[in-house]
């Protein structure tokens, strides 16, 4: 299985290369081989997988973190992976013609292949972390595909939106996984079976469940995160068909289905899922009423169906879980086909507005037939596979009036949408912005196959899908079933409801112009995308404000903050810990020492307040000389000497530089001066106290004694300080002289360049 | 005995240094400040430093002390001259009671010649 996934990525990497040497069509055909082979390979495994023992594969990756490639193939993953590879093959074929006029098709195929590989990774993973990794990759490849027509701002906007929404969801998902791990100690999905009790009881399980669901909901465009999906229709149509109806958006459904047996132990799980699904199905359906773009209609109905699927998981009943597999399969088949046919219509007529299209069947017989069959399936008319799905759906909801009503209304609107998207353009009076003819073979073969399958699955459900659904059920519930799929259940309540649904749907269709022209107040704040924009711009505004406040360009402000933090923190510890206890003040200084102190004090006051630049330099010299003198008093002649020399040289440098600088004219505001004085004085006081306190700690330096004992004997020197500099710690000195050398180079560099400028 | 001599040298030296310090504060213009300070301090320091040389009673130390004194004697007047000249050219005012200024005449003549 890992091989299949890797093959997908590899073919993605090779796609641009292949495209370089071949035409679009040939490239598409070549690349279609990969999903086709995967499909065949998976079919070959189907026997084993369906026999009840999942096919398992494990390759170590980061064992220390418990993250490995762990795959397994059971009913659920088999169904998903066959959809992915199967529809994938058709999409490649379709694209190879559809994209003929596009640029950068190499990249397109690359993205598409990689997407397919990532998606396979998601559904085949049996390890939450592996799943997560592929999950993120699907978001990413989807980003690239949505933004494929990246010269349009709308495309870039939509791509980023999809990425951010699903990315945020992904991060929530990750957080959920981590918390779940901290409860269970495993990332392995099957191993979760042993922790159902813990998951039911542990208080951390609730946040874990909610976070994981956030991941699933964003990915599957559940309310209120659904808004990115219709925007994602900026992508070329094959992408919409593949990602945004048949596969990627189902990843969320897959995730919920996959975890349902284990996490449903927690009461939050099913509740949240059920109602989210319920709201999503009706809400999205309602929005689809107001659309006049084939792709948008299909997009919203997709969201609606995703709601239904979510809802079915949430019900978590014996029947709803069986229904889930059927509905998912049926939807993938008809919706992918409808997307493709609407793409073909667009390709052929240049329009996607169903109000402006009609009677295309004659001109585009193959496409039209496929669309009609798919629409039939979508509406749920015998003998299409969609019929079974809808019957089963109704059976699942009859126990609750609210569910049933909502389900019914949704189904009515879906019927209407199917009529708009799959019937209206092809039947009735011919209507098209331009001359039309049938699309190339490769473009109708895909929808054709899908439509055929919708029919075949409907006619012979048990043969085609029976095993799959039963095993899928087993994966979803953990229980075996001998349920037999049947097209015809006889005349029952569901059938009658279904008939009413269709009639109401047709009714709506007839009223379509009225509905479309109905004035619905445009209330911004009920649109979730409004919140996305608000949040997006809010973050930008906050970031600007924050930057304006923090990184405001004022060096003085930076200094203030840094000093407050750097000295405030130690001072806090020092004072709260009473570090100043037990201080020893030493002998009283001699009178001449005090005089030196006074000189420094006066000088410092002058340095701070002087208006004359020159005075300040002189005073700097005074301070330096006085400190040198202090070094003499303290028994450090080398230090004093060096300080004398350095001080003088520094003064010389100041003198050479300073007359080119202006006088001290800029005076800061009084409040700043007060603030700065407070900071400065408290810093000084802290340093003084800390010095005395540190001094009072008894310390015996081994180094001092060692140097005193050995400087002459081992290092042949009597001036211990110098011996330290050139021998004991010569490495310091080597670094130190390097610093000096670099400084000289720096001065040289600075001088040089401005000479060039002044020319 | 030698301690007495040293004491005298030290106190005299300190006295001269003090004098020059007072002089530099008291004198009314820069030139007289320099006149009164540079020399007095040089003398005072020389006295003190030589006292130190005697005190340590070591020829190496003494030679160093002589070097310091000699160096002071050479550099102090050069520095004073340079500063005095600079101060004058800078336009530092002469004391109001200064009787005459032959230098000014010279400079004015020089400037005329340049023009």
């Amino acid at each position, binding site marked *: 299985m890992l091989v299949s996934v890797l093959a997908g990525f590899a073919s993605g990497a090779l796609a641009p290369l292949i495209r370089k040497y071949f035409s679009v069509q040939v490239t598409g055909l070549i690349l279609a081989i990969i999903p086709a082979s995967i499909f065949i390979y998976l079919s070959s495994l189907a026997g084993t997988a369906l026999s009840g023992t999942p096919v398992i594969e494990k390759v170590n990756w980061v064992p220390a973190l418990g993250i490995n490639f762990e795959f397994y193939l059971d009913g659920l993953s088999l169904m998903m992976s066959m959809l992915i590879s199967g529809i994938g093959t058709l999409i490649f074929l379709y694209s190879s013609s559809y994209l003929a006029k596009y640029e950068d098709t190499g990249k397109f195929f690359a993205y598409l292949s990689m997407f397919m590989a990532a998606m396979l990774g998601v559904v085949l993973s049996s390890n939450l972390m592996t799943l997560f990794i592929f999950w993120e990759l699907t978001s990413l490849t989807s980003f690239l595909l949505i933004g494929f027509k990246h010269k349009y701002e709308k495309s870039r906007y939509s791509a980023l939106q999809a990425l951010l929404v699903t990315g945020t969801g992904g991060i929530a998902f990750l957080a959920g996984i981590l918390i779940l791990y901290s409860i269970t100690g495993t990332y392995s999905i099957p191993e979760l079976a042993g922790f159902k009790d813990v998951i039911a009881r542990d208080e951390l399980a609730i946040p874990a469940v909610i976070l994981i669901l956030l991941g699933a909901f964003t990915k599957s465009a559940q309310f209120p995160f659904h808004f990115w999906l219709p925007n994602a229709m900026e992508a070329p149509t094959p992408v919409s068909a593949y990602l945004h109806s048949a596969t990627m958006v189902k990843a969320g459904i897959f995730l919920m289905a996959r975890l349902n047996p284990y996490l449903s132990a927690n009461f939050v799980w099913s509740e949240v899922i059920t109602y989210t699904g319920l709201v999503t199905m009706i809400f999205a359906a309602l929005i689809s009423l107001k659309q006049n773009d084939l792709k948008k209609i299909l997009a919203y109905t997709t969201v609606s169906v995703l709601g239904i699927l979510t809802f079915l998981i949430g019900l978590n009943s014996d029947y709803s879980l069986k229904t889930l597999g059927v509905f998912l399969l049926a939807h993938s088949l008809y919706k992918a086909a409808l997307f493709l046919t609407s793409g073909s219509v667009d390709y052929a007529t240049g329009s996607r507005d169903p109000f402006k299209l009609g009677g295309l069947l004659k001109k585009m017989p193959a496409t039209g037939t496929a669309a009609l069959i798919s629409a039939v399936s979508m509406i749920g008319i015998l003998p299409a596979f969609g019929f079974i799905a809808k019957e089963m759906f109704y059976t699942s909801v009859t126990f609750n009036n609210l569910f049933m009503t909502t389900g019914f209304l949704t189904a009515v609107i879906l019927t209407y949408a199917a009529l708009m998207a799959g019937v209206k353009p092809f039947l009735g009076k011919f209507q098209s912005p331009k001359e039309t003819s049938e699309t190339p073979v490769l473009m109708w073969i895909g929808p054709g196959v899908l439509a055929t399958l919708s029919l075949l699955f409907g006619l012979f459900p048990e043969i085609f899908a029976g095993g799959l659904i039963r095993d899928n059920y087993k994966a979803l519930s953990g229980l075996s079933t001998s349920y037999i799929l049947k097209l015809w259940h006889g005349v029952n309540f569901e059938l009658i409801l279904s008939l009413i649904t269709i009639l109401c749907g047709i009714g709506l269709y007839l009223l379509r112009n009225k509905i479309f022209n109905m004035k619905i107040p445009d209330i911004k704040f009920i649109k979730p995308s409004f919140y996305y924009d608000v949040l997006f711009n809010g973050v930008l505004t906050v970031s600007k404000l924050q930057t304006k406040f923090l990184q405001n360009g004022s060096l003085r402000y930076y200094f203030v903050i840094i000093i407050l933090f750097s000295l405030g923190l130690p001072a806090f510890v020092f004072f709260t810990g009473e570090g100043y206890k037990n201080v020893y003040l030493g002998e009283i200084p001699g009178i001449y020492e005090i005089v030196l102190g006074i000189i420094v004090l006066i000088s410092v006051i002058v340095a701070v307040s002087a208006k004359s630049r020159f005075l300040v330099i*002189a005073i700097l010299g005074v301070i330096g*000389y006085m400190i040198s003198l202090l070094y*003499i008093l303290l028994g450090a*002649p080398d230090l004093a000497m060096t300080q004398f020399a350095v001080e*003088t040289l520094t003064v010389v440098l100041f003198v050479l530089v300073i007359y080119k600088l202006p006088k001290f004219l800029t005076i800061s505001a009084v409040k700043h001066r007060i603030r700065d004085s407070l900071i400065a004085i408290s810093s000084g006081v802290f340093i003084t106290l800390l010095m005395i306190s540190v001094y009072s700690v008894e310390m015996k330096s081994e180094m001092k004694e060692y140097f005193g004992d050995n400087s002459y004997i081992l290092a042949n020197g009597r001036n211990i300080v110098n011996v330290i500099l050139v021998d004991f710690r010569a490495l310091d000195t080597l670094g130190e002289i390097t610093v000096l050398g670099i400084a000289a180079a720096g001065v040289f560099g600075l001088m040089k360049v401005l000479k060039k400028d002044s020319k | 005995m030698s301690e007495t001599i040293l004491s005298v040298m030290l106190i005299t030296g300190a006295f001269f240094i003090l004098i020059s310090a007072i002089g530099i504060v008291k004198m009314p213009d820069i030139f007289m400040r320099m006149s009164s300070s*540079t020399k007095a301090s040089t003398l005072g320091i020389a006295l003190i*430093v030589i006292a*130190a040389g005697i005190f340590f009673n070591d020829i190496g130390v003494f030679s160093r002390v002589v070097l310091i004194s000699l160096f002071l004697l050479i550099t102090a007047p050069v*520095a004073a001259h340079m500063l005095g000249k600079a101060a004058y050219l800078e336009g530092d005012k002469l004391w109001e009671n200064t009787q005459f200024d032959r230098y000014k005449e010279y400079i004015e003549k020089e400037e005329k010649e340049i023009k």
Partner: protein
Amino acid sequence: MKFEFVLVFTLSIIGLSMLIVLYRIIKGPSIADRVVGLDLLMASTLAFLAVFAMLSKSAVFLDAGIVLSLIAFIGTIAFAYYLQVRRKNE
């Protein structure tokens, strides 16, 4: 003991002189005034460390004095140079 007192006394006088000189450095008013003050202060420093060398009976401190005597001169000359260059540039 007595001699030590003389040394401390001398040090104190020198210290006092330094304080007085500091007044001139701060007061100015001209740059030359300040430089003269600084020059005198450095000279006093020299005396100070010579006396302190005696007080601590350690001749090594005198070596610092040599450096000071050599170097202080250069500082003063640099100031004079500065005054000249400034005049030229203005």
